[in-house]
């Protein structure tokens, strides 16, 4: 399709791509053969680092560099592919895995060999049970074909691969919570340092990468890092699968070259809002990214440009809101999600998300005053940077940005709420009763 640059999605429309035969027929597993037979692991690692591939899960950290942090030497090391895609607005990994699972498996095995890792896991969110089934079948095929397991392709390399299904918690997409969950514990983030590269799963050095990041690896190995750098911008090389959703005519996944104007994605590829409607706000990187406005539609879609604009590219999920969307409701919806998903381990996130929801509910119901908007903003500031992991920030950044950029809408919502539901003075705002043992009120 015009405007797209398909690398990971190159054969996405090919029927039966999920089977190993089709994948192989289309050139699959050649990169693995090359990586294992012709390149030594150190070289492999440096070519990944040279390619400038940045993590596609949200943080955008250099994948090769992360892999190079793992200590060398003979010890039990782990690779965890983070397939706990739970961010509202993100659905790229689902398609990458369900359509082309072998591309991911190939990437995992190459990355594992490069970092000297013998045991790999795919931690897939429980709700992706259909995808997990596809992945399970693909892993079975790959084992049977000798691409995974003992003595891969008779090269002496060993990589075991296990697909593990999560139990449905957003927090388990946080890399250290993922490790705890994988170990069978309650999925709570760990304190960093130590970073997983040094002390991760079961205390061993662990490389954790997103599905899309690892799916890029075979292409880099096959074509070289210079070829890869030919795509995208200097600081954001390669392509990106962007999930576009919300008020657009053609929502879906689009693979684009990093750095193209954002307008081209939202309007060109996704068709923009329905006829007669205009973009009011958009999340450039999932619901945890600070919102941007229509004035910012021409910014290049890259890690650095989004950061300069005060937001982030994150997992590359664009959510579009047109003028019919109430920003206070959007803020409440966003806050409720993070309130529901907060693990509760650290204070600012646990209490901050909870308090923010209560305040936003008052905004909608007309029980707030404009001064409460200052409290909401200040609470978001108090969350950002003070938490154990970034979940708290993930609510505070978009909510804070919405209050800052659309304050007039919040003020109007307070007025409207008050008018809509006049309340007798003697009625208490909420019904507060002790609840049974064990339940929270």
């Amino acid at each position, binding site marked *: 399709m015009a405007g797209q640059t398909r690398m990971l999605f190159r054969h996405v429309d090919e029927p039966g791509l999920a089977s190993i035969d089709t994948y192989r027929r289309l050139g699959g597993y050649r990169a693995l053969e090359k990586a294992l037979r012709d390149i030594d692991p150190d070289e492999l690692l440096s070519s990944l680092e040279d390619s400038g591939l940045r993590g596609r899960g949200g943080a955008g950290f250099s994948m090769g560099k992360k892999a190079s942090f793992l200590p060398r030497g003979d010890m039990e090391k782990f690779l965890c592919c983070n397939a706990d895609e739970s961010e509202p607005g993100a659905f790229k990994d689902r398609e990458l895995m369900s359509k082309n699972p072998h591309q991911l498996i190939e990437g995992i095995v190459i990355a594992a060999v490069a970092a000297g890792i013998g045991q790999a896991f795919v931690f897939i969110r429980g709700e992706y049970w259909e995808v997990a089934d596809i992945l399970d079948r693909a892993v079975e095929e790959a084992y049977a074909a000798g691409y995974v397991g003992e003595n891969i392709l008779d090269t002496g390399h060993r990589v075991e691969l296990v697909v593990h299904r999560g139990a449905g918690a957003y927090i388990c997409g946080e890399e250290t919570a993922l490790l705890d969950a994988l170990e069978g514990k309650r999925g709570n983030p760990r304190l960093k340092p130590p970073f997983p590269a040094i002390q991760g799963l079961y205390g061993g050095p662990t490389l954790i990468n997103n599905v899309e990041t690892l799916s890029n690896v075979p292409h880099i190995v096959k074509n070289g890092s210079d070829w890869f750098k030919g795509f995208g911008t200097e600081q954001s090389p390669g392509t990106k699968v962007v999930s576009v959703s919300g008020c657009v005519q053609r929502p879906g996944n689009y693979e684009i070259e990093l750095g193209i104007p954002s307008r081209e994605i939202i309007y060109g590829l996704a068709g923009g809002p329905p006829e007669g409607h205009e973009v009011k706000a958009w999340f450039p990187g999932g619901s945890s990214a600070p919102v941007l406005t229509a004035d910012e539609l021409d910014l290049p879609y890259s890690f650095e440009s989004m950061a300069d604009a005060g937001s982030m590219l994150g997992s590359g999920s664009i959510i579009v809101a047109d003028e019919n969307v109430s920003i206070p409701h959007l803020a409440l919806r966003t806050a409720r999600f993070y309130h529901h998903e907060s693990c509760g381990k650290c204070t600012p996130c646990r*209490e901050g998300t909870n308090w923010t929801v209560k305040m936003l509910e008052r905004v909608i119901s007309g029980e707030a005053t404009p001064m409460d908007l200052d409290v909401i903003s200040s609470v978001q500031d108090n969350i950002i940077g003070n938490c154990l992991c970034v979940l708290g920030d993930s609510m505070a950044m978009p909510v804070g940005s919405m209050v800052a950029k659309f304050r007039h809408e919040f003020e109007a919502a307070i007025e409207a709420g008050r008018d809509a539901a006049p309340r007798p003075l003697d009625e208490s705002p909420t019904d507060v009763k002790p609840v049974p043992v064990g339940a929270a009120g």
Partner: protein
Amino acid sequence: MTNGEEITLVVDGVEVRAQAGMMLVDAAKHGDVEIPVFCYEPKLGQPVGACRMCLVEIEGIPKLQTACSTPVRDGMVVYTQTDRVQEAQNAVVEFLLVNHPLDCPVCDKGGECPLQDISMGWGPGKSRVIDPKRHFQKPIPLSPLIKIDRERCILCYRCVRFSQEVAEDEQLQLLERGASTFVGTFDDRPYIAPFHGNIIELCPVGALTSDAYRFRARPWDIEDAGTVCTLCPSQCNIKLTVRDERIQRVLARDNFEVDDGWLCDKGRFGYQMIESPDRITEPMIRQGGTLVPVSWEQALEAAAAGLRDAGERTAAVVGGPSSNEEGYLTQRIVRGPLGSPHVVSTYDDAVDRELLLELSRPQLAASVADIDRAESVLVLGTDPMHSMPIIDLRIRKVVRRNGTRLAVATDRPTSIDGVAEETARYSPGAMSAFVEALAAETGAEVYDRAEGELGADAERIAGILRPGSTVIVWAGEPSLAVADLAAQLDAKLLEIPAGANGRGLREVGCTPVAGPGLSETSTGLSPTDLCEALTEGDVEVAFLVNADPVRDAPNGPGWNEALQKAKFVLAISMFEDGSTKHADVVFPAESYTEKEGTVTHPDGRLQRVRPGVPHPGNARPMWEVLAELAGLLGDETGIDSAGEALAAIAQDVPFYARITEGEIGGLGVRWQEREAARNFPLAPGARPERSSVVVPTSHVGTTGGVPGASPAPASDQLQIGTYRDLWAAEVTDRSPALRFLRPTQTLELSPADAERLGLNGTPEVDVRQNGTSLRARVAIRERIRPGTAFLVDGLGDGAGALARHAVEVSAAEGGE
């Protein structure tokens, strides 16, 4: 830069010296800078950085960092007072108060509450929260001893971490998620675990409160008094909360070398026994069959007359909780003016003096903290959970945090089996045989390597033990093989005595084989022989000092008869019990909260027991009473204070020489680490002549032959072992809060034996041996060695007498 190296950092512009690797929050204290914390508690292990209260600014790091989890480096520049840091601190306090009820005026914690203190010191000072707070039913019992108020909980994780990572009972969990998270147990079951009281102290708010202490006092009503708990050999350091001269609460008084700052629930709630209305508070004389209160003069006269008449036909039984001073003065009375050699302080038959010396030698003695430094630990012949509970926590700690290798070799399964790398089971009574096999495996040539199962077990256990870095925690049958094993491995020994002050009492002379300082003396009767001699009339007078042999001796019924037959019984006791029933004169005993004196920890640490509350009624300091009694019998001791009693001990026990109360201080001092340890009566290298060591044979049951090699019981019989359950104690019965923990007599047996004897599904059985019979519930336990079964000792039903006997078991007649 290595950990421990002296480094310099700058905190708020002040240069602070600290050790590299120390957490910033601790290092800052060296510069008098306090960084507030809630979740940080080094006793719980690695920091978790959850509460975010300790955020500070560190030069070179863009984000604020948690001081609790940041190890200090040389040249680090830290700010704890900048606007940015203050904003973060204000924010965290504000967040914590979003859901905290602020019911401080009716909260037990009010006035000693870290949340109050930190809100005052680091909070914003005003609230912006107008939204409703979360609500729970409250307070509800988390256990029979603890109430939980989930509204007050600030979710700091301390209690959960304790349960998961210290006690490892894993019962406390965080349930639900986010702001709905709450602390609870699976399926709301009561949290019943022997150390769970510690979470009350760990809680930084009033969410976990002691049921027994709720609404009893406010912090401004109370005083603290430090002492040592003598309810078991752990001798944990405690702090009494005293209001109006009554004990309201017991808290831990951190002493890393002794207890790591933890307490068991017995020590924490057992104070209720001391406040019991049933205490004996006045001296009494038996008149017309009943004990009637009399004056001290009358009682002392009567006691002196009774003892004087019997003279050398007197025997003293000194109980475990007695202080060194009480023990010393008792044996001095018995050995001196009365001229009798019969002094015992344990019901296990004494070893001879040579073996005692060998096993007590300072070079072999492990300190409690040596466990932390050892690469491997062997638990031999005892379950620390029951015999010295606080050691159970320490062993768990070193296995978890240091990767220490643990081997357990016992007759009965222990509570630490789960963290042990290897476990071995031998039959009750076969400990010595096992130790000899183990010593042989480690290379001691005087023993033959064992064949078969015994040999294989010994080999497995030996494989765990690291030469030069092993601590052997043991109890049970003393034998030269224990010393040989230690010598072979260059290991250190920590013996857990049966009584709380077992070691101290032995060292001040309360043993029939040695006088004060383990000196040579004419040998008295062993406990078993003593019981018999009393029954036969060869010994006429029993002098019981804080001892209740009817309950505590394995042969309780035998002692009951012995005391009944005795011509005269003088008892020093806190309560009227099975032994005072036979007493002619009773002196009211002091508890460890009233007593002044010293005790000696199993690792040789002398500790001070100090009075925190006044004596009840007419009770008097026992050292004073005993000194007076000695005077009446003609030994003018000149002892006019507890300090002088200690000085007399220091005079007579060469390896305690010149020790004073001041030197012992608040944390105690190990005699092995003092200069005077050189005075130990056995030269460092000297080993006793093998032939001179007598192996006690009275341990072996009547079915037995050779020690350790108990014959296989007949097919319908079981070889019985007994153990003293942690809760099979007077304190459980006398403390209302603990009463629910009193064990029911239970026969524990292996699934194979249950099958063989047709006991599957049988709730109760009768256990019979040679005319005696007792009733027990049945518990089938996987890890019990087939052919063996266990009963609880110390319940007063005579189970102890069945130890090492083969018994017949059948479904209870007339039972359910």
